């Protein structure tokens, strides 16, 4: 022990050099104990990482899940909102029996008559109060030409209010006017797709296109957005038209007539339909669903067969909202359970760590640590771990929906409440489950903690 004997003996220190033991709330002591907590996090690297990971996954999963479900329900509702919440949509549908009969017939093709009539619309307009406007449309499938270029599209004969009623916007030019409707004018508004197909280079406005043997002057171009498949799927033709063009209702009637020929698998087929589509606008949304029912009754009385379809976007919207709420409750419940499971995981790690560290607590207590020093140390650890985990989780939870949107084209919506909720719940779980075991360990007699293996 030569190394001991060469050393100069330690002089007994006087009390003067010693700071008074710190009592009460003391920032210096708190800062020091915070440092111990931080140090402890790093010296238990794997366990700290697992704790953080548990919180990150829990928080991120909750936020992402809610964002996806919120986005899905928004998308569903938007489809119906596009149709106009104060509208009722009527469509002519070829009844199944009529189709059968015409197929079996051997003689010359007879025109099949079905669908909505002008008389239906007049009755609806005259008997139901609160109907502010009716926009009737005829839809005929035609080849449209610009010199040598042609495309097959639905030609919609309609009235001036059509774009407003469906929330469609014009990209260029204008929609046709009341005067043009009155005059059976040969004017046309193209959809974006048709405009691009027929006029790949030129500006189509002011140019002419040819349908059958008539020329129509292009006055406007519609924005392609707003064409929802739901609105056009059944009308006019069996396949949904990729796009539409619009001419005055009167022009459609006088140029194409009410009977149209159609190419089918079995040869030519002709059908007579007065109106293909009608948008009935109601004053005020409150009565829309009720009016929808009345219209349905009127049509039932007036038609022997069900050769029409009625669609109330608001009713569908309500249904979508209801199912969205259900989805969100389910998603919320799953999210809550995943947070809880995450929390139990965290508690498990914390509990194991305190059990493992009970001896350390005993040693620290023997060396002069007070109960609250121990609790503070573990609280600092828990707060830092769940805080860091929560922040990373929130960042991931916001980024993941964005990635989902970009790569899968799904609408995702992160509402502010989701990150706040996920973060505070996880922080709470982290802190409570983190501090509870340490409180128990700090409450032990030092002897007991020291005896702990």
């Amino acid at each position, binding site marked *: *022990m030569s*190394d*001991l*004997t060469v*050393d100069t*003996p*330690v002089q*007994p*220190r*006087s*009390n003067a*050099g*010693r*700071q*008074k*033991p*710190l*009592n009460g709330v003391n920032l*210096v*002591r708190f800062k*020091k104990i915070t440092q*111990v907590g931080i*140090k*402890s996090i790093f*010296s*238990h690297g794997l366990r700290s990482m697992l704790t953080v990971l548990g919180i990150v996954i829990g928080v991120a999963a909750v936020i992402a899940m809610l964002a996806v479900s919120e986005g899905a329900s928004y998308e569903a509702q938007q489809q119906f909102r596009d149709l106009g919440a104060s509208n009722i949509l009527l469509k002519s549908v070829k009844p199944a029996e009529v189709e059968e009969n015409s197929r079996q017939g051997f003689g010359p093709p007879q025109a099949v008559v079905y669908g909505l009539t002008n008389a239906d619309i007049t009755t609806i307009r005259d008997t139901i109060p609160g109907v502010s406007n009716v926009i009737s449309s005829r839809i005929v499938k035609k080849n449209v030409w610009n010199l040598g270029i042609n495309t097959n599209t639905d030609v919609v004969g309609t009235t001036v209010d059509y774009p407003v009623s469906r929330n469609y916007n014009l990209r260029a030019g204008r929609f046709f006017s009341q005067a043009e409707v009155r005059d059976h004018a040969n004017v046309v508004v193209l959809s974006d797709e048709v405009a691009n197909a027929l006029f790949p280079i030129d500006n189509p406005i002011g140019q002419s296109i040819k349908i059958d043997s008539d020329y129509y002057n292009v006055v406007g171009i519609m924005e392609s957005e707003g064409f929802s498949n739901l609105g056009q799927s059944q009308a006019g033709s069996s396949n949904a038209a990729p796009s539409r063009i619009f001419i005055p209702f009167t022009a459609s009637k006088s140029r194409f007539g009410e009977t149209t020929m159609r190419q089918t698998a079995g040869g030519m087929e002709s059908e007579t339909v007065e109106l293909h589509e009608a948008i009935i606008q109601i004053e005020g949304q409150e009565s829309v669903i009720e009016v929808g029912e009345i219209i349905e009754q009127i049509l039932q009385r007036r038609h022997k067969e069900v050769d029409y379809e009625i669609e109330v976007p608001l009713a569908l919207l309500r249904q979508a909202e209801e199912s969205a709420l259900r989805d969100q409750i389910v998603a919320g419940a799953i999210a809550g359970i995943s947070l809880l499971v995450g929390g139990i995981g965290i508690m498990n790690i914390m509990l194991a760590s305190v059990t493992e560290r009970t*001896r*350390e607590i*005993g*040693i*620290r*207590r*023997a*060396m*002069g*640590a*007070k*109960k609250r*020093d121990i609790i503070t140390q573990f609280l600092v650890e828990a707060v830092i771990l769940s805080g860091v985990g929560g922040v990373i989780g929130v960042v991931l939870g916001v980024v993941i929906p964005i990635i989902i949107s970009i790569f899968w084209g799904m609408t995702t919506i992160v509402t502010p409440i989701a990150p706040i909720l996920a973060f505070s719940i996880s922080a709470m779980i982290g802190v409570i489950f983190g501090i509870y075991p340490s409180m128990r360990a700090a409450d032990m*007699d*030092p*002897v007991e903690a*020291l005896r702990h293996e």
Partner: protein
Amino acid sequence: MTALDMQFKESASRHALAGSNVVARVEGIRKTYYMGSLAVEVLHGISLDFYSGDYVSIMGPSGCGKSTLMNILGCLDQPTEGKYYLGDEDTSTMEDDELSTIRGARLGFIFQSYNLIQQLNVLENIEMPLFYQGYAEVESHEIAMSLAERVGLGDRVDHKPFELSGGQQQRVAIARALAVDPLIILADEPTGNLDSKSGSEILDLFDELHAQGKTLLTVTHSDELAERSMREIKLRDGEIESDERLNS
């Protein structure tokens, strides 16, 4: 001895045991453990005085209550009955926080199984009691460094406990026990886990501490330790069997 006496007198002006050089006194200490409905009294009324600068060894067969007594002397455990004066204070009326403070400020512990914190290095382990006493970082660093050198581990200060031998770990524990310059150093079987060579080295260190006037209280099964001490107390079944001063 004289330097320490002076220091002791200076700090003990309000001393309950003022006038004498008694640093700790137990009066009629009893300790009962309750196991379910069964009450087992382990200490049957022990009264002892411990003097400043003394080197005491407590011996006795296994289970006679030596550790129980040491834990009470270390304020790690409370007696069921009886009084314990430490320095100028009566510990039997103290709250948990006060007991923590008195453990940290007045007592130094040496355990059979060293009880170092594995995540902390040698220096940080030595600093720990200073930390809880609110020493400034620079000062506690200085003290810990000089104590590490004092116990021959000046070149190992950044090692973790598991990188050290048992004897070296126990020397870290001794340095830690000395850090706050306590009134009493308590050692429960300090050589119990060590081979005879490193055990002897620890006892050499104790001799030096004794020569410097430190008060040492040890529990041991080692005859060598008992022979080197100044006063040998023998316990049997929770009672004092003998208490004799050794001439050396």
